[in-house]
Each structure stands twice: as structure tokens, then as C-alpha cells.
């Protein structure tokens, strides 16, 4: 008796579910968002946005997907090729040109009111503009600065951070001569951003990545920059064999108090806070050769042209993702720079002296040029630098060869 009742009950329940679920699915607008994994906080922040937006718009279902940066480009291209592109995704701004040229990114100028546009810090909106058309909003921004170990430099007789590359060489030499086993200057020579680590020197010697549609890495400034780094390696002012150190390896040296100076971004502050809270360090601008420069990076959040609900997707961005509340939370937890004026005015950022070391450099920040085949150009430069650092090639020869390869890639 009981069993028959149970069967009947479950039958009724199943019928009810069958009847109800398609109705639910049809009435809700689904927005798929691919979230790049910045840190373990990222999904939490976006889940907050999701619940806020869904509370205000009960007919919308935001679907978040967490994808690591290593897999992001591959994942998105596969999705696009397979016709299952999401509605919204975070991408590296340096990829945007490919997305715009292939008609995948939706231009957002029509959606953006002048008031909304005015809320952004102009410099960060700019990188997502191609030929006067805006293809996305800056979701994250960072600039790079020099981290220096106050104790190591003070012991070596430097109470002020070096301002020029000449002073960096002198200070690094002094740290080495002190013989405490610490390296003067951390040098990156392996994996992602090896080229960027050298672009700092290229830019501050007056060079450009792209000049008149051609690679500028083999310019006089480029050769000077490569010669400078190579001579520092040869004199033992950096850690030995830098082609074995990727960014994390080099940052670990700094966190352990074994490198006096390194160039890095705002994320390192957060890591030092949790991993090496007693490290006595400070921030200074990127050293100067002939001019001041730093690397400015933005990531873009974009809407896909293939999306069936572009209006709702935009609404999600404007109302929630770029609301003051969520912006402050995002930049604070992830350790990025504010991209909106309201964020910058928030006490968390306005009273943060260290952060001002980064924001102070924004006026002369260089952003990655919007060229096709950026990754290929980046790898070509990295390979040339690795040959120079290992002493397998002279700076001029290696850089000229890489520049020719890059020129081919740009002109494609």
C-alpha cells in the first residue's frame, strides 16, 4: 500500500517537474559570462554581481563560467569556432584586434551613454578602441613599478631608490659587493612576459614596440636596452642564468629578501602581505634611461556579436558589473588599479600611498600596441632575448632577426 502511494507520488512529482521546467527555461533569458580566473576571489565577486542582477531582473539567468588565463584564449576560440560563443567574456585587450577584425566583438558605442562613458578614466578606455570604435570595457587595469628591498639597499649604502638605470647598476653592484648572498636586480628570462620585462628598458631608452607599422625592437634603443641587461647578467648583478627564472621564480626571490630590486605589478603587494609580511620594501617608478615609461595593461570585458540578448548583456555590464559597489570590490580584492573615477576617489584607493606609485605613472604608461599576431611577436622577441641572455647571439643581430619575423606577422 505504502509502496503504491510512493510510486503515485513520484509519478505526480515527475509530471509536475516535466510540466514546469520547460516553462521556466523559456521565460528566463540566459546570459553566459566567461570569467577569467584572476585569483580565488574572482568567482565570488562575480557571483555577487550575479545575485544582485538577478534580484533586480528575475527574468534573467546569469550563467558564470570560471576559466583560467592559460586556457582562456584556446577555450574562447574553440567555442567561437563551434558556434557556442558566450554572451560576455573577459579577454586580454591585446587579443581584441583579432576579435574585432573577425567580426566577433560587438561595438558598444551605441549602448554607451555619454554619462556612463565619462565615468571611466580615459587612459583605460582607450586601449579597447580600434579605429574609433569601442569594442569593450576595461575590467582590470594595472601598471608596473619597481619594488625595492629597503634593508638590502640601505645596507649597501643607498637610502633612496635608484631613479635611473645607471643608478640601478651602481646599487646592484653595491648589493653584490656587500656579499650577503642577495642579488642586486631580479631578471626574468623564461616564459610569459619575458619580453615585457625587457620592454621596460626599451621604452625608457626611448624605443617603441611598433614604429610606422614596423617592429621597433631592433632600434638603437632596443640594442642599448639588451646590452644593458646582458651586461648586468655578465657582471653577476642579477641571479645566475636568468633564462631559468620565470616571473614567479623572480618574485619569490624578492619575497625571500634575496633580490634587492625587481619590476612587477600591483598583485605582488597582495602576495607579499600574505606570504612575507615582514619584508621591508617600497615602490618606485621604473628606472629611467632617457625617458620615463611603464607598461600599462588592461583586460577587456566584451559582448559577442553572436549573442541573442546583447541588450540584456549590456544591462548587466552597465547596471551591475560596472556599478561603484562591484568595481571597488573587484579592484580591491584583486589588487588592480581603479578604472573608474568613482573607484579612484574611494578611500581604499585614495589613501593608498603604494597604489599611487602605480597610478602616478599612468600618464606615461605604454599599452600593448594593437597589432595582429601579438603572441607571435611576443614569442619572437622572447626567443631573441633568451639567445642574448645566454650569450648565443649579439643584441643587434638577434633583435634584427626577430624584428624581421615580427614585421612579417604584423603585415599579414
Amino acid at each position, binding site marked *: 500500500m505504502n509502496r503504491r502511494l510512493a510510486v503515485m507520488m513520484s509519478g505526480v512529482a515527475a509530471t509536475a517537474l516535466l510540466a514546469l521546467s520547460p516553462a521556466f527555461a523559456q521565460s528566463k533569458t540566459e546570459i553566459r559570462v566567461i570569467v577569467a580566473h584572476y585569483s580565488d576571489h574572482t568567482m565570488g565577486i562575480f557571483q555577487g554581481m550575479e545575485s544582485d542582477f538577478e534580484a533586480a531582473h528575475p527574468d534573467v539567468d546569469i550563467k558564470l563560467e570560471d576559466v583560467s588565463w592559460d586556457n582562456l*584564449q*584556446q577555450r574562447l*576560440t*574553440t567555442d*567561437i*569556432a*563551434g558556434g557556442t560563443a558566450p554572451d560576455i567574456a573577459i579577454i586580454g585587450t591585446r587579443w581584441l584586434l*583579432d576579435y574585432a577584425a*573577425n567580426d*566577433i566583438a560587438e561595438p558598444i558605442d551605441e549602448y554607451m551613454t555619454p554619462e556612463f562613458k565619462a565615468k571611466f578614466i580615459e587612459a583605460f578606455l582607450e586601449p579597447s578602441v580600434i579605429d574609433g570604435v569601442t569594442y569593450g570595457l576595461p575590467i582590470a587595469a594595472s601598471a608596473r613599478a619597481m619594488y625595492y628591498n629597503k634593508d638590502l639597499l640601505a645596507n649597501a649604502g643607498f637610502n633612496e631608490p635608484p631613479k635611473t638605470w645607471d643608478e640601478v647598476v651602481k646599487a646592484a653592484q653595491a648589493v653584490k659587493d656587500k656579499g650577503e648572498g642577495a642579488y642586486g636586480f631580479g631578471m626574468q*628570462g*623564461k*616564459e610569459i612576459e619575458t619580453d615585457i620585462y625587457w620592454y621596460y628598458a626599451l621604452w625608457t631608452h626611448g624605443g617603441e614596440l611598433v614604429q610606422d607599422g614596423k617592429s621597433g625592437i631592433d632600434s638603437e634603443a632596443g640594442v642599448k636596452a639588451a646590452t644593458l641587461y646582458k651586461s648586468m647578467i655578465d657582471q653577476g648583478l642579477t*641571479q*645566475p*642564468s*636568468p*633564462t*631559468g*627564472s620565470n616571473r614567479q*621564480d623572480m618574485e*619569490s*626571490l624578492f619575497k625571500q629578501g*634575496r633580490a634587492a630590486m625587481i619590476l612587477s605589478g600591483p598583485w605582488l603587494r597582495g602576495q607579499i602581505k600574505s606570504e612575507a609580511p615582514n619584508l621591508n620594501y617600497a615602490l618606485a617608478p621604473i628606472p629611467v634611461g632617457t625617458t620615463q615609461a611603464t607598461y600599462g595593461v588592461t583586460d577587456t570585458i566584451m559582448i559577442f556579436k553572436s549573442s541573442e540578448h546583447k541588450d540584456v548583456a549590456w544591462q548587466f555590464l552597465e547596471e551591475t558589473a560596472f556599478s561603484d559597489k562591484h568595481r571597488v570590490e573587484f579592484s580591491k580584492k584583486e589588487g588592480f588599479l581603479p578604472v573608474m573615477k568613482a573607484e579612484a576617489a574611494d578611500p581604499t584607493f585614495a589613501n593608498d600611498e603604494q597604489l599611487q606609485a602605480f597610478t602616478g605613472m599612468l600618464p606615461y604608461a605604454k599599452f600593448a600596441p594593437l597589432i595582429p*599576431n601579438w*603572441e*607571435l611577436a611576443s*614569442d619572437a622577441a*622572447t*626567443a*631573441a632575448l*633568451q*639567445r642574448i*641572455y*645566454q650569450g*648565443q647571439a649579439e643584441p643587434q643581430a638577434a633583435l634584427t632577426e626577430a624584428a624581421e619575423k615580427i614585421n612579417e606577422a604584423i603585415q599579414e
Partner: protein
Amino acid sequence: MALSVDRTAHGGATRMLDRTRTLPALLLILPSLVLCLWIIGYPIYDVAHTSLHSVNRFGVVRNFAGFANFEKLFDDPIFYGSLWRTILWTVTVVGGTILLSIPIAVMLNDDFFGRGVARVIVMLPWAISLAMTAIVWRWSLNGQYGMFNATLFQLGLIDGPVEWLASFDTAFPIEIAIGILVSIPFTSTVLLGGLSSIPADVYEAATIDGATGWQRFRYMTLPLMKPFLQIAIVLNVINVFNSFPIIWVLTQGEPANSTDILVTYLYKLAFRYGRLDTAAAMSLIMFAILLLFTAAYIALAARSTEREA
């Protein structure tokens, strides 16, 4: 005479039986045959199609390109470098694996106290994923805080940090050594299987006739193991030729592409540079190379069964 007549009659009966059964049998396996052909054939068709067209990062096929993608590859010095290193990598890893696996298999085949445990220890690394093994090695080999340098330092063999993965000269041999290490479990299992199929009384007879240990190994064990060695070599070649995780995790083909092999460069072409068309051309070339090996495998297998029969 009678025998031969008998055989023909028997053969005729089989053929009769065949004819009535072939059609239904074919019909029965047809669905799986079609599925197999489709699963194997379609990707090959797709890659071939891609390799002859200009295809953008997002897989949109644009125009017919003829052999332009192959030409691009043949103009690329990194392709030749990777090809040469792939051969070096495959030959040394497979060669080293076989050379080390034979004595290991022979030892494990002998009866000794704790043989079961020893076998488990040799097989155990097989259970760990390649990527994980590679990551552990990468940590161990770290120049500044790796276990490897710490040990060498304490033994007084080095007096400062050595970055093992910083140049081809040290990185590639280390990658080969790790490649050998992870291939040993599979290979020695195959060889051990071969050894245990050799009856022990053959050895007893040889020992009574005065054969030394080396003679028994050289003139009995090795020839009897030949089919197993051939299988181990060919399967390892296919496996090692396509092996991606060790090199990718340890060096990503760096510094300056000096540790790239075909499969790591293929990954960069396809997923980093978005050159799906050139990458397709390259995988076709790799497919052709492996096809040669597979043909060799089938020929070897056919020859050894023929000899056994």
C-alpha cells in the same frame, strides 16, 4: 594423397559456409565499421582540408591556399629544429627505456625475496599522471630552492645555484632522462610478460649443457623476447614522439625554442599564434611520420607471427 583430397574437400566446405555467412556477418558489423571509419576518417579529412585552406584563429575557413601552409612550414627554421630534436628525443628516450627495461624485467622475473614489492615499486610511477610527474621535477630542479640542487650542494658537488632548465645543454638531457624514467614501467611490464612466457626448463637444459649466464641471455632470452621487444619499441616510439607534458611543463620549448619538439611547437602554432592552418599542415606531416612507424609495426608483427607459425 588421401590427405590432400581431404584438405580440398574440407576447404570447399569452409568456403561454402563462408559464402552463406559473409553477408549477414558484414551487415552486422557494418554499423560499427561505419562508425570507426567516421571517427578515424573525419578528423583526418578535416585536418587535411584545413591544411589546404587559409583558416583564421576562430576556425573560419577562408580561401583555398594550395600548399602554401606546407611551404610556410618548410621555410620555418624552428620547424626543422623541432623535427631534428623530435628524432633525437624519440631515439634517446625509447633507446634508453629499452636498454634499462631489459635488465629490470630480467631481474623482476627472477625469484627473490620481496619480488612482489619490487614489481609494485617499478609499476607504481605508471599510476601518476605525466603532467604531475613533470611538475614535481620542475620544483625539484629549481635552481634557487629545488631539492636537486640542495642535495648536490650538501654533497659538495656544486658551490652555487645551477639553473638546470636555463639552457638546452642541461635542460634537454634532463627531459630525456625523465622521459626514460616514466616510460620504464610500461616497457618493463611488456618485457616481463614476454619473459614469463619463456618456459624455465629450457634454461635448465642449457645450464646442464654448460651455458654461462651471459650466453643464456644473449642466445636464449633475447631471441625469445624479440616479438615483445618489437612491440615495446614501436608502441614507445608512437607514445614518445607525441609526448607533450614533460617538455611543456619543464621548459615550454624555451629558451629560444631550443627544447621545442614538433608537438610542443604544434601547440604553440595552433593555440598561441592562432595559425590553425599551418598547424594542420604540421600535424599531417607528423601523422605521415607516425604512419611509417605503424606500417613498420604491422610488418614486424606479421613477420614474427609468420615465423612462429
